[in-house]
């Protein structure tokens, strides 16, 4: 194991975060705070409670997931796309480092960033609404699992993208809608039965449901299903990455 190389990539990627602090950390925190103001205070004041929890409190797990998902994808996809774009990828490809180690460096850094961000947003949320986390260990488990899985997914997008447009396409057109429709701001029980069935096809529902359960012990689907679905997505991403490196897809001629 070339642990020095993993460390070099990891620290390089983390250094990029500190360099772009405003964009990486401050802007997601600001936009989440705005969600609290708009949904929590303005709209939430007209909704009494959702499954025994005040609306402002109810949306906290969904908002954290929203940021963790989008930031994991953004960080990881940009992290690997940028060296491809500038050409500095030559150095990674010519270094004595295995594919697994490359992924560990890039995805590790992307996941670290989004997990830190999730915790910052959690702390920010605490300033707006009273919070109580029933299962902190499970909360962290879901946070880490989601951060890692979607960083892997972002890594795949970064490899696949051959232009900035494509880099933005999946997060904008697929991930954001799925997250909004995945129960960030409501319980899918509030939907009519047909739409509820449709919603269950959305993988993000399982993530948010499990994560919300760890906070308030209320869930749209059972926790084991949530964990199972997230793990399944993780495995799909891992297999895809294994295939990318085995074939050199969009990396090696």
């Amino acid at each position, binding site marked *: 194991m*070339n642990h*020095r*190389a993993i*460390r*070099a*990539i990891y*620290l*390089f990627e983390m*250094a990029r975060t500190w*360099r772009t602090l405003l964009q990486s950390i401050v802007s997601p925190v600001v936009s989440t705070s705005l969600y609290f103001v708009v949904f929590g205070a303005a709209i939430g004041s007209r909704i009494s409670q959702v499954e025994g929890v005040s609306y402002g409190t109810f949306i906290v797990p969904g908002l954290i997931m929203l940021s963790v998902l989008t930031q994991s994808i953004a960080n990881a996809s940009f992290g690997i796309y940028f060296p491809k774009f*500038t*050409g*500095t990828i*030559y*150095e*990674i*490809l*010519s*270094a*004595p*480092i*295995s594919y697994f180690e490359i992924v560990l460096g890039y995805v590790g850094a992307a996941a670290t960033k989004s997990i830190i961000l999730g915790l910052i947003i959690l702390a920010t949320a605490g300033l707006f609404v009273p919070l109580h986390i029933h299962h902190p260990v499970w909360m962290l488990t879901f946070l880490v699992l989601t951060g890692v899985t979607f960083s892997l997914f972002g890594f795949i997008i970064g490899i696949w993208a051959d232009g900035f447009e494509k880099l933005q396409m999946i997060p904008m057109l697929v991930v954001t809608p799925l997250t909004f429709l995945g129960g960030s701001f409501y319980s899918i029980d509030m939907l009519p039965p047909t739409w509820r069935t449709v919603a269950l096809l959305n993988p993000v529902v399982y993530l948010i449901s499990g994560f919300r359960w760890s906070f308030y012990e209320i869930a749209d689907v059972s926790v084991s299903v949530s964990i199972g679905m997230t793990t399944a997505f993780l495995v799909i991403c891992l297999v895809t990455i294994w295939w990318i490196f085995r074939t*050199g897809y969009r990396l*090696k*001629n």
Partner: protein
Amino acid sequence: MSSIISVANLSKTYGSGFKALKNVNLDIKRGEIFALLGPNGAGKTTLISIICGIANPSEGKVLVGGEDIQTSYRKARSLIGLVPQELHTDAFESVWATVSFSRGLFGKPKNPDHVEKVLKDLSLWDKKDSKIITLSGGMKRRVMIAKALSHEPQILFLDEPTAGVDVELRKGMWEVVRTLQQSGVTIILTTHYIEEAEEMADRIGVINKGEIVLVEDKATLMQKLGKKRLTLHLQNEITSLPESLGHYELDLCDSGATLVYDYDTKGERTGITSLLSDLRTAGIRFNDLDTTQSSLEDIFVDLVRTS
């Protein structure tokens, strides 16, 4: 001298069907400076990319320091430093950070003294804290060399190292390369500048259309393929050559002021002695004479044309 790189039956066909390399066989000796010459699109960069792990071979085998580049890639790659043709840099990193990053990437423990030495050798020390984006093209090129040298490689690939670099800097870079060779590093450079190969290389390989056309010691190559030119500066201009000199294939230049005679150094008889004697007989006198060896460039152009 033993081989440090051994390329056997290497072929590369791109997805488009383009055959970039056709059954290439090549051995690079330990400690030499090897110049790989060839026109654009000949396969130079593809060959280097495969040896360094950036492109996959279609067929064939490459050993670096005795290690297979595919099955034992860690050992093979850790011996190599690569300076690619294009200036690929992390614009917003400092020189120090980017060079240290490369060292880590190649699995070497931190060694600020070595990084300092590399930067000083390449006259980059006063720029160590500068962001790469602020550096000139020549400095960026040296940063890339510094990155390649950061992990103390035994082999250095320089793909067109002096493309777009001014004369002074080019000479400075040659100096760096010579010093590296003295420290035991094997250097493989590709170049368009024939004078660069002529100046630097111990051996020369010519590649054209994906095939190695020739590999030879530079001196032997020059001798083997080199032609010499004798130029006679005449005392009095002449309008035409006397018939007695008709069989020499002489050229009358500069309005009859100089006579030019091309001869082959490989030939047993160059014909110079009899030419000079016949000139005297014909009453043609000269003030001065000089001979020039044909350059590697002439040889190269000839080779590529005939292949």
